[in-house]
């Protein structure tokens, strides 16, 4: 009833076409990212655990770096992605961008958590303590709190379009705050070593150590793409459930 009415309105149809196109394209990209991701992660893990040399000081506990660093990098870049998607959603009123931001949050939070927990596990044998109030640990913890805030706000808001705008504002404010947090805690207390990877400098480790790390980082990015797209597709389906294309898609299966 409703459906037929909508079909008569070309404008509706075109506005709905965007999520539809997105659903289709992610459907094509998903196998690509998930297979590459799985392959890279398996390769990276085997390489990291079996073939990468141990560190001259830390011995084999060094291998934790292959989880710790990718997850820490990912936690930060997912936050940036989320905030930027939120900004796009606000400025251009793009529904898909809102949904991307929504899909990012839990994945990012779990990456921040993973970075923290592996940091703690790594800290025990190297620093001699499970947890130290060190700059980077603290700023990662705050990043996790920011994720929690975004997710809690999303859960409390109810209506998706409103929630999307509210969380976008919050994550943008958090984005401005991230460098401030970073510098504040860095000046406040310092024990952690500087960043392992940076774009401008040559890595401070030999090739046989950082190559598997690179593989792991890429694998983690593919994993993020996979998890995010899966969430995004669910979100598209549930928000567009009153449209014809979802009906066709679902009944065809």
């Amino acid at each position: 009833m409703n459906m037929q009415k909508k079909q008569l309105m070309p404008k509706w149809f075109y506005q709905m076409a965007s999520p539809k196109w997105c659903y289709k394209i992610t459907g094509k990209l998903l196998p690509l990212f998930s297979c590459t991701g799985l392959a890279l992660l398996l390769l990276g893990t085997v390489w990291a655990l079996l073939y990468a040399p141990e560190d001259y000081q830390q011995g084999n506990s060094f291998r934790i770096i292959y989880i710790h660093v990718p997850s820490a990098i990912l936690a930060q870049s997912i936050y940036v992605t989320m905030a930027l998607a939120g900004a796009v959603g606000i400025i251009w009123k793009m529904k898909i961008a809102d949904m991307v931001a929504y899909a990012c949050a839990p994945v990012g939070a779990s990456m921040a958590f993973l970075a923290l927990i592996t940091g703690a596990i790594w800290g025990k044998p190297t620093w001699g303590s499970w947890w130290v109030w060190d700059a980077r640990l603290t700023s990662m913890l705050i990043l996790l709190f920011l994720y929690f805030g975004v997710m809690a706000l999303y859960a409390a808001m109810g209506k998706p379009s409103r929630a999307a705008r509210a969380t976008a504002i919050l994550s943008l404010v958090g984005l401005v705050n991230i460098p401030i947090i970073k510098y504040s805690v860095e000046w406040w207390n310092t024990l952690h070593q500087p960043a392992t990877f940076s774009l401008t400098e040559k890595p401070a480790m030999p090739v046989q150590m950082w190559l598997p790390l690179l593989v792991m980082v890429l694998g983690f990015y593919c994993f993020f793409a996979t998890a995010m797209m899966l969430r995004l597709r669910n979100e598209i389906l549930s928000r567009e459930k009153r449209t014809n294309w979802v009906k066709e898609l679902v009944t065809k299966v």
Partner: protein
Amino acid sequence: MTPKRKNRLMLVLFVILGGVVAVGLGLYAIDKGVGISVFYSPQQIADGEAPAATRIRAGGMVQQGSVKRDPNSLQVEFVLTDFKQNLTVIYKGILPDLFREGQGVVAQGQLDKQGVFQAVEVLAKHDEKYMPPEVADALEKAGVDADGQQLENNAGQEVSQ
């Protein structure tokens, strides 16, 4: 100019002014060296810069050959150095794996009346350089560290001469 445009211009100027003030103050703070004293070096402690009778952090290298372990307890005594001044540290407890001579550590504790640092926690500070043990051995034989710089123990010898 319409009042609306004028308002908008005022707003933009206000925001720019705020940004400039923020950057200026930030640069001033960096210039003043905010937050550099996260831990005191043995030199600073010898100069009396560190407050007595409160818990502070002391950082430096563990001097080669200075670690004395008490055979009957977990007590460890070692000398923390910045190659200018030395500070004796006493600590009871399990040391981290990375604790070794020539390694950077940060100790948390209090100075006692004799000028000995009573540590309650010793943390090993590890750098961002990683390398396989064979490479490290080779480098050590050549007398350079991963950056190609002279190893600390050479520097330490210079100081002791």
